[in-house]
């Protein structure tokens, strides 16, 4: 089984350590992973802003770049959700990416299924359930729906010894990032982010962790500006810590 690692543009540029953690983690778990060169962006930011047509050439490029891989794994729920749900309508031919692209949490939880402990992380963490993870990829049961409760992020984090896991009040309310939303609707976006960070901090956690760096980036900027002492780590970073 050959796995292609997709490191989305903003992770590549701003959170390279998350790319490294994902790569190391997959290798540690015995996954045959490769990072094909020439990656940029999946096209999501433009499409969510209303310029889907500008995402089409990027979709085509991704399709070619990851030809020959069984799965494409990305440490980003929103990019994965975009590829899965919107690529098929962007391409004028069959889309392979949509069927084989998975977020790293999904991939580990559903395909690799690790059960042995993954070292220790003796800290208090609060899970940030990103909207696209919850409501588009099904990483956890949406609080709105009456279905059995589950949380794939929590399941994986429990493999770390010594970890204490929390979720904030309003466990899957949006943090207000929303791509270009945070530019166009900056007042609401900032307010949502502040509300979210405060609820995470109220759990007593030292870290906020989640499967999407963009949500974490938005919240960390707000935490810093408001003097809220809390750190941010992608789930992959916590899982890979100390391995």
């Amino acid at each position, binding site marked *: 089984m050959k796995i292609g690692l997709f490191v989305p543009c903003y992770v590549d540029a701003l959170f*390279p350590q998350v790319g490294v953690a994902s790569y190391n983690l997959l290798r540690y778990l015995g996954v045959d992973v490769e990072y094909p060169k020439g990656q940029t962006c999946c*096209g999501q930011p433009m499409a969510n*802003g209303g310029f889907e047509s*500008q995402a089409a050439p*990027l979709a085509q490029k991704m399709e070619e770049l990851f030809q020959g891989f069984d799965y494409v794994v990305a440490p980003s729920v929103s990019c994965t959700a975009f590829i899965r749900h919107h690529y098929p309508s962007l391409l004028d031919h069959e889309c392979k990416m949509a069927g084989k692209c998975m977020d790293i949490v999904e991939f580990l939880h559903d395909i690799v299924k690790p059960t042995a402990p993954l070292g220790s992380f003796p800290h208090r963490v609060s899970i940030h359930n990103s909207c696209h993870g919850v409501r588009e990829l099904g990483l956890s049961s949406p609080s*709105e729906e*009456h*279905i059995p409760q589950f949380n794939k992020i929590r399941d994986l984090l429990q493999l770390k010894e010594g970890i204490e896991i929390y979720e904030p009040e309003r466990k899957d309310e949006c943090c207000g990032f929303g791509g270009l939303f945070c530019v*166009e609707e900056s007042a609401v976006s900032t307010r949502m982010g502040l509300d979210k960070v405060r609820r995470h901090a109220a759990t007593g956690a030292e870290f906020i962790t989640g499967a999407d760096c963009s949500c974490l980036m938005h919240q960390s900027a707000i935490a810093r500006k408001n003097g809220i002492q809390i750190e941010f780590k992608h789930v992959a970073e916590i899982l890979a810590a100390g391995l």
Partner: protein
Amino acid sequence: MSKHSKKAKAFLKDAGYSEWHDATFWAVREKRDNMSHGLPEWEQLREKASQIKLHTLSHLDQYLEQFASQAEKNGTIVHWAADAAEFNQIVFEILSSHGVKKIVKSKSMLTEECGMNPYLESKGIEVVETDLGERIIQLLGQAPSHIVMPAVHLTPDQVGELFEREGISDEIGNHDPTYLTYRARLSLRNEFLTAGAGMTGANFGIAATGDIVVCTNEGNADMSTSCPKLHIAALGLEKVIPDYDSLAVFQRLLCRSATGQPTTSYTSHFRKARPGAEPMHIILVDNGRSQWIGNQQHWKTLKCIRCGSCMNTCPVYRRSGGYSYSYFIPGPVGVNLGMLRDPRAHSGNVSACTLCKSCQCVCPVKIDLGEQIYQWRQQLPEWGTEPASKRMLCKGMSTVFNHPLLYKTATGVLPKKPFHSLKLDKDE
């Protein structure tokens, strides 16, 4: 900045008020969750409700005909209004042919949509809203800020002061909600007894029987129809459902979704006028709906049963308030309905969405509201209403992303070494 975002910014300036607003609507969302999590068949009901609506909308001509002919058999007079102007005119003609000078009204977003109150008032007819929230905003000269709780944005003090000014309450400074409700009730009693006609909207029209069904918590629809001798009911074309079996599905969902109660206090069924009263009038209003049904991308928005739960859950609505939207219906469904009504006028609302999709997970008829907003954003260039700055920004991004070399250069100046430039163990 979009029109919505400017108003939202102003709304958020008052931190205390906006926090209260957010908490108030979140509490309604939580009540709704308690109700929905108490019904094991909740998700099946939603699916069923969605299916019934899809079926009815795609056979609407048949169901409308059936509804109208059943209603006529019951002795009701059925009217068809193509648009708001025709609707207002029909209402006025019915009223003037009966010499009515004052009407009492239960809550109807359709009359709001058609601007009926100002029209009738311009013709010298007094209109009295009898839903407490609607009455309050009518006296204040405001529009509803929410479709189910139209005055929830006001505090008891604001209402108390209004009632003092209007002479409705006589204990100055007593702003206790129970007292204020009691005073409103006394003053409305008199209106019910002196009005010449009662007007209601309808939550559902039952095609099989020609009945209309009105859900209220205050019993004001019953008062409006049992005191005056003339009852006029207005409903949008999309309100018609096949039969009582379908009603049972919607009835279980509507109030649980809307306010988190198992049911409204009153669910009133009207078939014909009571003995001794004038025949009942039903006005079926199109006002754009028949066109929207033909809109391949957006027709499913018509499934909406106006429960308001998409507003309560929307993190943007809760933090920007009903008046920050340009259409009279706010929140996720309002963004969509506004675009169907007039995309040029209401494009300024489509920014009011993070695409978190919470709305589509609460919607009792499973409208894909967030996905629809995403689609509207793609369509903005058709009307030339896409923000120029955003277009430029996206163009810039797409140039960089389409040229790996440019991308490498751009990311090379960042403080951290980008991932793509790192050496991986496999490369060694």
